[in-house]
């Protein structure tokens, strides 16, 4: 008997020693995404998404909005994946397609097109180096975007991209660059935006890649979450090797990168701390593996509880306007996911598919949840966190510009064909983008300003783009001149170009009457220009719904 009891006690001790430390309150769910469930195809994951979303509706007795119609869906998808409204040709083709899987085919087509990499390069760039109005960074933003675009074009997986960011060389080798006309773009601008400072890099990388907002803990123990000041600096220590000359803003380059440095002095004190991971894990330092490489290994590890989750949440937020955890970079005891099981699953599947972003995007956009209409049945708008109705999102300045150009087939003066993707300082796109930069993080509460309204109503760009002069823009001029089109077809063509849908009966009737009498001056061409102007100035155009 005694032996058996001893044996059981022994087992108990062993169990205690072997078990992982218990999750503390406020930790994100399971300690590691692990490999518990099998890998799901994008279609199957989409079904799972819907099952979990719908379960919550049943719980709260919510009736969801119907699915979006073809026009609504295609426009939304084109903006979210490709960064601009669909070309008229693509819209017509899509509407004419009678196959049941046409929406999934549209997703696949967009993901394979160069629009995806261009748009998502802009999306990630604006997350990594936000303020586009700073001319010092304006010079460098395009470089970061170029690097992102290169990687996205090859569909480099997310973990590899983040690893490259974390271990990027920060000292410019001027000798190697001498005499070369072009240099391979790198993620260096990210470091420049943080002024090469370890504390800034710590805060930025933690927020972006781990979904953990550490900032407050820089000076004192975090008032809300569990982070202590020492923990902040232990994490910042991973970047301590980067040295810049004193007094320099650090915009250009670091002077030195001590690859093995792994301790840092807490600013304003004499205390020195050693580099430690956020979950207080001790790094296993290895010979010839630099400090930042060690960090990258931990951040992008399949077992890192924050990494996949933060990425999945950000991608979700991109498509739905708000994350499963919202605000996206502050998961905590007070800020839990609206659908915990769903976020776990998305993170898990992301890991199982080797952090392939296209996989996750496919699964999200295949889902019925993504296809919900944004039309509200009544003035009583349901809690957006139930995702029973698609939230309205604002457009970025780039999306707006590119959409106007697409709708009007505007001929940008003096632009090089491939410069479309970037903000070339001084160009029409650059000027427009700086006017329309929206500094608000909350995409579901996009607000138009008076200056923006004036620019859209009267500005040179929109005026040129809606010109009847075919040398300036083709859509309107083409429609006006087409002798085979009667007024209803012309109005319909304008709708398809601008709003990616056909006009409703009442709209058509009203506008045909207006055009046929030539507006206030009896001029049919001018009346058509009026209609086009109205479409381009409408909420329906300027918003992603």
């Amino acid at each position: 008997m005694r032996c058996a009891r001893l044996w059981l006690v022994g087992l108990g001790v062993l169990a205690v020693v072997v078990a992982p430390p218990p999750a503390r309150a406020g930790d994100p769910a399971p300690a590691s995404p692990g490999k518990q469930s099998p890998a799901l195809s994008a279609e199957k994951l989409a079904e799972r998404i819907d099952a979990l979303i719908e379960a919550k509706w049943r719980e709260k007795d919510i009736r969801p909005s119907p699915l979006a119609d073809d026009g609504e869906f295609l426009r939304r998808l084109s903006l979210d994946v490709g960064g601009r409204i669909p070309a008229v040709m693509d819209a017509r083709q899509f509407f004419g397609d009678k196959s049941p899987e046409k929406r999934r085919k549209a997703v696949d087509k967009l993901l394979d097109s160069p629009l995806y990499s261009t748009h998502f390069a802009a999306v990630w760039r604006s997350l990594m180096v936000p303020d586009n109005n700073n001319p010092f960074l304006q010079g460098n933003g395009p470089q970061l975007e170029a690097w992102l675009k290169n990687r996205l074009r090859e569909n480099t997986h997310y973990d590899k991209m983040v690893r490259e960011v974390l271990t990027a060389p920060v000292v410019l080798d001027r000798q190697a660059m001498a005499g070369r006309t072009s240099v391979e773009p790198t993620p260096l601008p990210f470091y420049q935006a943080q002024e090469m400072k370890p504390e800034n890099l710590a805060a930025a990388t933690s927020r972006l890649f781990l979904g953990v907002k550490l900032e407050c803990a820089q000076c004192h123990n975090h008032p809300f979450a569990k982070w202590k000041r020492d923990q902040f600096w232990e994490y910042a220590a991973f970047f301590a090797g980067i040295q810049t000359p004193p007094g320099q803003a650090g915009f250009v380059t670091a002077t030195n990168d001590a690859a093995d440095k792994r301790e840092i002095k807490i600013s304003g004190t004499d205390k020195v701390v050693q580099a430690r991971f956020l979950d207080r894990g001790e790094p296993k330092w290895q010979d010839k593996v630099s400090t930042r490489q060690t960090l990258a290994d931990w951040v992008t590890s399949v077992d890192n509880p924050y990494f996949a989750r933060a990425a999945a949440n950000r991608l979700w937020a991109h498509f739905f306007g708000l994350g499963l955890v919202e605000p996206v970079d502050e998961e905590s005891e007070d800020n839990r996911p609206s659908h915990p099981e769903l976020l776990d699953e998305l993170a898990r599947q992301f890991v199982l598919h080797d952090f392939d972003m296209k996989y996750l995007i496919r699964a999200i956009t295949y889902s019925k949840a993504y296809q919900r209409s944004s039309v509200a049945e009544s003035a009583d708008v349901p809690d957006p966190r139930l995702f029973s109705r698609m939230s309205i999102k604002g457009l970025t300045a780039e999306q707006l510009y590119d959409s106007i150009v697409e709708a009007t087939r505007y001929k940008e003066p003096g632009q090089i064909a491939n410069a479309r993707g970037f903000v070339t300082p001084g160009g029409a796109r650059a000027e427009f983008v700086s006017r329309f930069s929206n500094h608000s993080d909350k995409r579901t509460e996009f607000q138009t300003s008076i200056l923006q309204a004036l620019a859209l109503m009267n500005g040179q760009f929109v005026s040129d783009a809606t010109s009847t002069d075919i040398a300036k823009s083709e859509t309107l001029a083409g429609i006006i001149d087409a002798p085979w089109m009667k007024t209803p077809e012309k109005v319909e063509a304008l709708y398809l170009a601008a709003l990616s849908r056909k006009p409703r009966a009442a709209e058509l009737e009203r506008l045909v009457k207006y055009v046929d009498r030539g507006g206030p001056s009896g001029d049919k061409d001018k009346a058509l220009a009026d209609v086009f102007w109205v479409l381009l100035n409408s909420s329906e155009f300027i918003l992603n719904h």
Partner: protein
Amino acid sequence: MARTPSLSRRDWLRLASAGVIGTSMSGWLDVLAADAAKHPQRKRSCILLWMNGGPSQTDTFDLKPGHANAGEFKPITTNVPGLQISEHLPKIAKFGDRMAIVRSMSTKEGDHSRATFLMRTGYLPQGPIQYPSIGAHVAHELGSDDAALPNAVAIAPYTVFAPGGYGPGFLGPKYAPLIVGDTSNQFQAGGQVDYDQSLKVKDLAPPKEVSDAHADARIDLLKDMEKDFVARHPDVSPQSHLTAYDRAIRLMRTDAAKAFNVEDEKGEVRDRYGRNLFGQGCLLARRLVERGVPFVEVTLGGLNGGGLGWDTHADNFNQVKRLSEVLDPAWAALMTDLKERGLLDTTLIVWMGEFGRTPKLEGNGRNHFPNAWTTVLAGGGIKGGQAYGKTSADGMSVEENAVSVPTFIATVCAALGIDSTKQNQSNVGRPIRIADVGAKPIKEVLA
């Protein structure tokens, strides 16, 4: 977590009609402005004179005569005995009785970018939090949703180093200042700026090819479209779109935009302010305040727009003298005109830069110096005729009553009748006060 709700649904028909009829508004706004000036409940306004680059306190408002650090300028006495400022500010010296010179500003930020952000928002840039600038707060607290003019106007701002310090932050685009005379693209102070044109609101008129009749017809058609869309999408964004267009149209259609026609002023008046961007900008500021705009700011950077004029690392005395010669007549004209119109008691004027400059010369220039520097509060809500706080004899440190940025912001708010402890919902879900926790207004400088 709702934002301040958009105004009540405007009756588009009424507005469009008002636009079409138009002429009934002329003359009305002047009468209204005059009435408002006399009204006891008239809301206050704030004019911020922003000195870009960090003006030298030792050569403007906190001279150290007799000391090794004195420099080349001599002090003169204002109209308040014992209160002395630079000899190159003789006109504004006549308003000593309306000024509280805060000589004990003390911060830790010596970098243009961070210091500008700090002074203009009251906070250091911190990750994703979009702190609103002080102008946006004033627009939010004192502005009116019904006004034809925007509630905040920035004249010739140089936003390059801290664009976030000029924006509405998490208060939203409704409180973004209307910008005229944007000189951010000009880094050097050279190059004449056509200030008449640059002080106008961009894109105020439809393109020439569009006749008035067509412009009106377009608005009518747009109204119909919006009604449909908003009915099916009762969210914040479509409503704000309507609101922005509504205000833009009012700006276009009513006489409100005439406020920006500085050329309507008599030549003699324009001469008094000084025929340069800053001078004419101050004149425009007066016109806007007369029409009830709660917040206007005018930047003095280079000599005629652009640049870090006050950033006198080299050639300090020549530069500061030239800048003072632009600042002095413009500010004095502003004080005179406001007083004449009975508006000085309800208009707070704030004079400040992002930091001061080293009292000890380095070569022939002075470098950044946030340790001990000067800002000036004048006009409405302020007990003038005094200097608040004291720096040491050599100017290197504050001896009495050090003033932090939050304290300064709280004081500005108090002078305007704004509660600086009020919290607003930020974009990260955390409520943030107008002035940071613990900030208390300086009682001694408040009227």
